[in-house]
């Protein structure tokens, strides 16, 4: 394991400890000594909420509500906790009392009206079936689509050679897809959904990434107390223009354990089997590239101020290929920060991977094995088009597109993403920098009410 990787893990552990130690300052003993102190008790309530000790928050807020009956903020805080606790009977009683109180401001009444609407929505049972159709278009600018090495040279038999003259650096790829999802809410805690999709991928100059892709998946979700289980299985098949057609099938799960409202642990595992149709090329039969990949990860997620999420994840991947030199295994580390903004959700993401390949590829080097270190940096902005409409209305006025822009409401989603992948390898053929910028837009048609 490299020094850099170790440093990142130490940083991650320290971050988790910092987050944990930064929330609990007021002790229960201090509350016993100062049961009526507004500042101390309010701080205790928020700290206990952050620690997931909601009953302590509840009893503290009730105490403050008794001691400071005209303080509307305490009552509204208490109402928000009761709403999340699904304590409907008590919530309705509190709301009625507040609405009858002449001291309750209009702002508070508006807030209460919103809560009553939420309660009404919660009272309606979920529909048994749900179905929707997604139409998607994505365009990607690739700075180095063929992965031309940093030195622009290639190792052949351990000797440095000039890079292939037909390699493409900058190119654009386009993807047009549609997918249909049909699901059933089995009961209040479980659901099953089926997805089938078809995508046409094209490339501007080259043809490496030109294919038609058929995909399908089944997933099941189940809630057990604080545990969310989501097992899944999938199958994809690609019809390639220049490469061998291939298919992948796999199973896995994406599970989450909610420690409390702010903290959760996510853990995943997956197994994928990829098969290529036999196609003999200059480097041999393509089915020699068939492989099985297993991966697992465990992550920690921390939400603060409702609009910020910090996630960290450690993973391990193992790929077993028919060709020994195509097999590798190694750890990975991912850290991300997500923030909700008025016009969408921004995500900053950093991934560090170490892949140690097993066998020697003597065509490239007779004695040196391949070890890659890859750093992936990503920035992404996503959301609904309706969230950015207020910001582009001015543009609509200038370009006289106001009627068209006004129609862009509801389930129309956008994603803008910039990814930089920097790979450093013991075999410089694989040392490359790739920069991709993509824009995608998805229109969702809900097929059920």
């Amino acid at each position, binding site marked *: 394991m490299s020094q850099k990787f170790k440093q990142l893990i130490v940083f991650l552990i320290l971050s988790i400890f910092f987050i944990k130690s930064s929330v609990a300052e007021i002790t229960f003993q201090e509350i016993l000594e100062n049961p009526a102190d507004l500042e101390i008790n309010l701080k205790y309530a928020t700290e206990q909420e952050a620690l997931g000790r909601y009953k302590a928050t509840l009893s503290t807020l009730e105490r403050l509500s008794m001691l400071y009956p005209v303080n509307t903020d305490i009552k509204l805080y208490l109402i928000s906790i009761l709403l999340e606790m699904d304590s409907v*009977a008590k919530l309705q009683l509190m709301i009625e009392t507040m609405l009858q109180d002449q001291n309750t401001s209009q702002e508070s009444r508006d807030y209460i009206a919103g809560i009553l609407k939420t309660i009404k929505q919660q009272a309606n049972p979920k529909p048994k079936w749900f179905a929707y159709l997604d139409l998607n278009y994505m365009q990607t600018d690739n700075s180095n689509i063929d992965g031309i090495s940093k030195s622009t040279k290639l190792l052949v038999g351990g000797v440095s050679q000039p890079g292939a003259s037909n390699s493409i650096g900058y190119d654009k790829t386009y993807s047009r897809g549609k997918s249909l999802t049909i699901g059933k809410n089995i009961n209040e805690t479980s659901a099953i959904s089926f997805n089938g999709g078809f995508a046409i991928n094209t490339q501007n100059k080259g043809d490496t990434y030109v294919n038609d892709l058929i995909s399908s998946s089944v997933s099941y979700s189940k809630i057990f107390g604080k545990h969310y289980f989501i097992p899944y299985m999938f199958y994809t098949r690609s019809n390639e223009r220049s490469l061998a057609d291939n298919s992948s099938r796999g199973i896995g799960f994406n599970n989450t354990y909610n420690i409390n409202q702010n903290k959760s642990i996510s853990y995943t595992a997956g197994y994928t089997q990829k098969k290529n149709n036999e196609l003999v090329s200059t480097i041999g039969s393509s089915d020699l590239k068939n492989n099985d990949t297993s991966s697992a990860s465990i992550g920690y997620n921390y939400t603060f101020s409702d609009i910020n999420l910090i996630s960290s994840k450690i993973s391990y991947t193992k790929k077993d290929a028919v060709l020994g030199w195509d097999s590798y295994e190694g750890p990975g580390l991912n850290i991300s920060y997500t923030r909700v903004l008025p016009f969408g959700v921004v995500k900053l993401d950093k991934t560090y991977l170490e892949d140690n390949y097993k066998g020697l590829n003597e065509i490239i080097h007779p004695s040196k094995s391949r070890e890659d270190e890859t750093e992936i940096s990503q920035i992404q902005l996503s959301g609904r088009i309706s969230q950015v409409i207020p910001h582009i209305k001015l543009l609509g006025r200038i370009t006289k597109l106001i009627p068209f822009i006004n129609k862009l409401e509801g389930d129309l989603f956008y994603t803008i993403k910039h990814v930089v992948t920097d790979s450093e390898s013991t075999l410089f053929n694989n040392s490359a920098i790739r920069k991709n910028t993509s824009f995608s837009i998805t229109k969702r048609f809900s097929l059920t009410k």
Partner: protein
Amino acid sequence: MNKIKFLLISSLIFLSTIAFANANEFIGIVAVGIGDISNQKNEKLITGSKIYFGDTIMVKEKSNAQILLLDETALTIGEKTELTIDDFVYDPQTKVGKIVSNIKVGTVRIITGEISKQNPDNLEVNIPTGSVGARGTEFIVVTESDEKSTIVLLGPGKRNTLGMIPGTLNLSDGLNTINISNPGFQSVLFK
């Protein structure tokens, strides 16, 4: 025989020491005291007053209080209520213990604490018409008389978004047992 007498006397002295120690044991505070609140010695209780093992708390008309026990069980007591903490044992290190409280008359809202969290069977609320056991929850007991008590489960509900285990109440009138697991649902125990 002398040896037996000595042992008996020693045991009595030892047991009385324990009882004396328990009777003076601090088990919680009056976290809120509004109006006329007193204990069995007719001492007036105010916000911050200490509660001791075996104390009876009496909340008079137009008064209310919140009692906070050392395991963070919170008892919100309404007017015209009389309540006794008959048993309270709690180890803050292991968070294990036992609470037995007796509501003679009146209204008490209870938010369970660490003792119930560790073992729900170790929280017992006795009422004239029976008893209430609680698992990780908030509930209200209204004892109108020796003949009738109403118990309402308040939460958390099954659709809580906090990952909390939904609350359950176990009620017994001495002969029959019933569970309440839906917030807002109530049961009336008659004698």
